[in-house]
């Protein structure tokens, strides 16, 4: 256990786990320090989203361990599994994962974000993502770029120790993509948790990430990867 994790930081997310499905097998082994941004690239179906799901707690590892510092999230040997709502992970999944029956405001203030109702921090987030005037609208009335900004605002507002972003700019046009990237860059500068960013965009990775790993589909069904280079 932990053979592939070369370096340890005081606060870090450590993943050393395997996921086995009928026709799919994933070996994930890497560590990310708090305050850094790890980009994950790789072909479709290589297991990028499954990796995020295991960190978020939406999937259990078939075997292995996931921990954040001394907190164990998932451990097949001790049969531990922490439910997603107790992990302190904020997410922006593909498509944004917005609640289509709730207004923009209620989406952003859902769950852990609700503690910032009518606070300066809420106002600042709305300002940062240029969401003034959209708060009472339903997601279905927004453009793709607006929806993505809502999803990011929600993930940035809610207190978290880990932030998972699954292709957050892939559905945006060039102009709103730059806008959203600037907002992410500003946020990452002060964020002291772990960020994992799934992206296919080299420009985005070089602008935002501090480390990169590339998932390859190796030996047919198995995907194995390791941390390419530490900081």
């Amino acid at each position, binding site marked *: 256990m932990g053979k592939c994790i070369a370096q340890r930081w005081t606060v870090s997310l450590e993943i050393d786990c395997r996921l086995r499905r009928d026709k799919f097998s994933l070996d994930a082994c890497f560590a990310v320090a708090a305050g850094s941004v790890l980009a994950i690239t790789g072909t479709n179906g290589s297991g990028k989203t499954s990796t995020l799901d295991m960190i*978020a707690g939406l999937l259990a590892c078939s075997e292995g361990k996931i921990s954040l510092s001394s907190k164990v999230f998932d451990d097949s040997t001790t049969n531990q599994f922490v439910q997603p*709502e107790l992990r302190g992970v*904020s997410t922006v999944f593909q498509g944004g*994962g917005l609640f289509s*029956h709730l207004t923009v405001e209620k989406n952003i203030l859902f769950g852990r*974000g609700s503690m910032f109702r009518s606070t300066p921090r809420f106002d600042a987030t709305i300002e940062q993502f240029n969401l003034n005037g959209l708060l009472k609208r339903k997601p279905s009335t927004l453009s793709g770029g607006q929806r993505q900004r809502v999803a990011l605002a929600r993930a940035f507002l*809610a207190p978290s120790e880990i932030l998972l972003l699954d292709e957050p700019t892939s559905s945006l046009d060039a102009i709103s993509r730059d806008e959203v990237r600037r907002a992410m860059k500003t946020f990452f500068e002060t964020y002291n948790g772990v960020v994992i960013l799934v992206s296919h965009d080299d420009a985005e990775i070089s602008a935002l990430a501090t480390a990169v790993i590339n998932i390859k589909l190796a030996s047919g069904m198995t995907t194995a990867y390791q941390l390419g280079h530490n900081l």
Partner: protein
Amino acid sequence: MKRGLSTPGGLPIVALPAIVIVILPVVAVMWRTNWSSFFSSITSDSSRTALNLSLQTSLAATFMALIFGTPLAWLLANREFKFKSLIRALCVLPMVLPPVVGGVALLYAFGRRGLIGAVLDEWFGIQLAFTETAAVLAQFFIAAPFFIVVMEAAFGQVDQRVVGTARTFGAGPWRTFVTITLGLVRPSLIAALVLTWARALGEFGATIAFAGNTPGRTQTVPLAVYSQLESGDDSALALSMLMMIVCVVALVALRGTWVSALRRGGQ
């Protein structure tokens, strides 16, 4: 000759009989209803008793479908378990079964000498058959499948990634189910409830077999219409007309949402 893409010619003519057969009876009832005595007919003692009973039993059956059908529909949509396809098929069976056969089946299950009915009678002295409760059970048996089918489709349409997102932001499984999953399926839920209620209101065959036709106890509106027709009572038409109005109002109130709910399972 019209400019533009041609479509199969003559289809409207072939479709005409379908329209006539469905619409003509509605018009006929409207035509034969004695409108001057309409109000007094539907407020007569026997009609009022039947209307009251129908309202109570159909609402009770719909409520039962909501409470017991929602978890079942969710399980069918989201979980894999043994005999799932068999359970699903049995749940839908009452939709295609002749209702009177359903009533007989209910009698063999809950009747005084039935599978469970015998136990209920011997141990607790409870007799279900030919009571108001039997009328509710008969309506539930016939109408609940509509609720389950619509809701299974609706739950199946819910994006599990959105549900997962709610979990990561701090909502537990129950809170997520109530605020996110049920919130997302709300249009379908309302449509399913109205559809189920309308079907329960119109139930005849299973009720007459399992609950009987006792005025004031088990004689719901459809049974009252039947009895009044038998005895040549004109208020049968008035009650028929009333049922028709109620159903049309229910469908108009939904403004086609139930059609799209059936098609797409909501959202």
